[in-house]
């Protein structure tokens, strides 16, 4: 059997999953922030989300104040923010449209339906009372599409590429979340003196990764910053941990190499093996928490390098490193994919 998956389609499958995961993370973060903020005076806490995505420059083009309403509008409905949920789902749908000959009718119908619901969202859907419900709808929409893929996508080469997009994006999101929360802790530490306040910060961090209850089961006593960080990085049972994601990435590249015997998969596989070994080695470092920013920077650079490697090996990109979404008609690509990541966390 000869492979007939077009390079272009492989790339679309990769980005379809990335955009879905990105929108889901955004909804998750907004919701966690909103519940963290409840019962606290003022809403100064929203600025960290802008830092999370290195978006200050673009944000300031439209808004002067990082109020809850502004940050939410910027990340949900503002189409000129390529990372907004609406723009991200639209990009996902355009990739799905290009992939339409390969995906199931159910997958296409689901994202069509989802997109029309996203488009219908207005300001009132993000009022204090309804934000949680709207974020939940968005998360469920993403879950549903990923779930339909799981249930219906033909397991040819497009499947590993879809999964690679999913887990590369997720690892990136978790790493960013960690980085910003720990940077916040450094600055906030002076304000939130009590251990109760500290605890609520860990609580919010874990909840935004849907990891709170899992953490409670794994660590019966209190919140230890070191434990929280290590849980989110290394626990291979936690579906949003970095190690879980890199494990899936390795499995998928392995599939391309062994099951589909793609000639270029060997190089990508060696890349991932190296990444896994490095990750383990860094886990041995007892001072990891003190060097967390450097660690996250490394994770994100590695993910960018891996994406470039996939581009060269499978998507037909030119040899010079390049990390871009495929050319899809609408909208402009999220800056996060290209410039955002390379800017790293310098603004955070």
């Amino acid at each position: 059997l000869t492979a007939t998956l077009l390079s272009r389609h492989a790339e679309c499958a990769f980005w379809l999953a990335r955009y879905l995961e990105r929108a889901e993370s955004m909804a998750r973060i907004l919701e966690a922030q909103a519940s963290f903020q409840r019962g606290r005076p003022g809403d100064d806490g929203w600025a960290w989300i802008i830092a999370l995505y290195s978006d200050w420059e673009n944000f300031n083009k439209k808004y002067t104040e990082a109020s809850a309403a502004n940050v939410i509008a910027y990340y949900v409905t503002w189409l000129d923010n390529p990372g907004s949920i609406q723009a991200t789902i639209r990009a996902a749908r355009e990739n799905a449209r290009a992939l339409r000959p390969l995906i199931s009718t159910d997958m296409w119908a689901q994202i069509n339906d989802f997109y029309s619901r996203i488009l219908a969202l207005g300001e009132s859907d993000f009022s204090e009372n309804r934000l949680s419900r709207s974020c939940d709808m968005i998360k469920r929409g993403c879950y549903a599409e990923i779930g339909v893929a799981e249930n219906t996508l033909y397991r040819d080469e497009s499947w590993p590429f879809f999964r690679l997009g999913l887990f590369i994006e997720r690892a990136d999101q978790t790493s960013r979340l960690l980085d910003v929360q720990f940077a916040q802790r450094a600055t906030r530490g002076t304000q939130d003196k009590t251990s109760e306040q500290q605890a609520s910060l860990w609580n919010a961090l874990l909840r935004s990764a849907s990891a709170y209850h899992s953490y409670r089961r794994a660590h019966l006593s209190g919140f230890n910053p070191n434990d929280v960080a290590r849980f989110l990085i290394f626990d291979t049972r936690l579906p949003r941990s970095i190690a879980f994601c890199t494990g899936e990435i390795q499995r998928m590249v392995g599939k391309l190499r062994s099951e589909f015997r793609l000639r270029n998969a060997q190089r990508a596989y060696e890349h991932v093996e190296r990444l896994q070994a490095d990750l383990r080695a860094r886990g041995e470092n007892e001072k990891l928490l003190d060097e967390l920013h450097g660690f996250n920077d490394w994770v994100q650079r590695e993910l960018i390098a891996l994406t470039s490697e996939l581009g060269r090996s499978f998507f037909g990109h030119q040899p010079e490193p390049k990390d871009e979404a495929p050319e899809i008609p609408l909208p402009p690509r999220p800056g996060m994919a290209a410039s955002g990541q390379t800017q790293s966390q310098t603004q955070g």
Partner: protein
Amino acid sequence: MATVTVLRNPGTTATLDEYDAGPFFCELIGDRQNPNPDLTRLWHRLQQMELADLAARSSDAERELFMLGITFTVYSERNAIDRILPFDVIPRVITARDWAILDAGIKQRVKALNLFIWDVYHDRKIFKDGVVPADLVFQNSNFRPEMVDYDPPAGTYVHISGTDIIRDEHGRFFVLEDNSRTPSGVSYVVENRHLIQRAFPDLMEGFAVEPVSDYGYRLANKLTEVAPPVLTDAQIVLLSPGVFNSAYFEHIFLAREMGVPLVEGRDLFVEKDRVFMKTVAGPTPVHVIYRRLNDDFLDPECFNKDSMLGVPGLMRAVRKGNVTLANAVGTGVADDKAVYAYVPRIIRYYLGEDPILPNVETHICREPQALAYTLDNLDKLVVKPVGESGGYGICVGPKATRNELDECAERLKKDPSNYIAQPMISLSVCPTLVGDAVEPRHVDLRPFAVTGKETWVLPGGLTRVALPKGSIVVNSSQGGGTKDTWVLRGDSR
């Protein structure tokens, strides 16, 4: 036995109570002198449905089309707007006897046109014998010198064709137009059927209707018949201009139904006169290209040099016999308005048979007798310039002013070769759900024929319906919709 009135709530309107087809041939009534029992049965079944229910299910069906993405897409600066082609729930039915005529007539026509195109690019006998004027073809922009002396597998140039057919007030069929380049619409034929089966199973129950859902499978088989000789299975691809094309849904549909990759020009390249596609495993050879891209854009080396949609070197690969294009390049010489007028003679010339499906009576004004007749009867005729499309320069005699008729006569005398004239034809009608009522609306029919070594005609075809009252324009850009088209089996019951 329940009667119609018992099945209805008192006070509600039955579907066909106020239906009046007027002077036109009605597809659901058929031959009034000799009623077809299946048509009568369907009439009564529709009659038993409540209008409100029919309307509600109809809007559900249209919503479903949208969610399934059975749409054409209109792009604006910021948005991709997906629209569905309006779908009418009342099917158009073709009896077994009528279909036998259509099937044979279309096969005959396709056969003659393929022989004609072969002649155009080889011996040119039909011109030497004075049956068709040479300048009609060789000065036509659709004539492609690159195709001279090229021998397509099985002699087939037109692999996929769509023949536009209408019916007059007596129910006689006429060919209005041949589409021998890249005819579209077949996806709606299949999707409309699926929709009816899902949303109106009660309407279809008990009727033996010819299936349409194997179109993709049949098409792939036919294309395999004309593949260049290869050691393994021939690799077929569907070449699309991309997501911006308004027919992109259909390209997706066809690729999926055939099980072949949907490629764009940028996914292909030519090396040593062979075509390859770029896959995750590296270059993979391609043998047959069902292209939904016009000749002009196919190969910037030969045609439009600025084309970004095509594949440089493609025509070299074609001429070497390494890849088959469906349809072949240069088939536009056979579906031109001027050539259309000669098709009955083309059929007689190559096949020695009378045409089974007549053309709409056409007066070729380059012929003195026809010119004289046209000038004498301008107020009864539709005069069309042959080189134009999109309805430009057409003079509709019965609706024109004296002044317009005089101007038309002047143009005719100046350049008679540029015009044909046809009588006004009244298209047949079909009951159609319009708002809260069922009214007659004009329809046409585009059956699709697929030719490899032999021709197969998909039973049925695309029925387009002109939704505005009295309109005879069925084009989707002008408010046209579609209907499911049933071809009844002879052994129906």
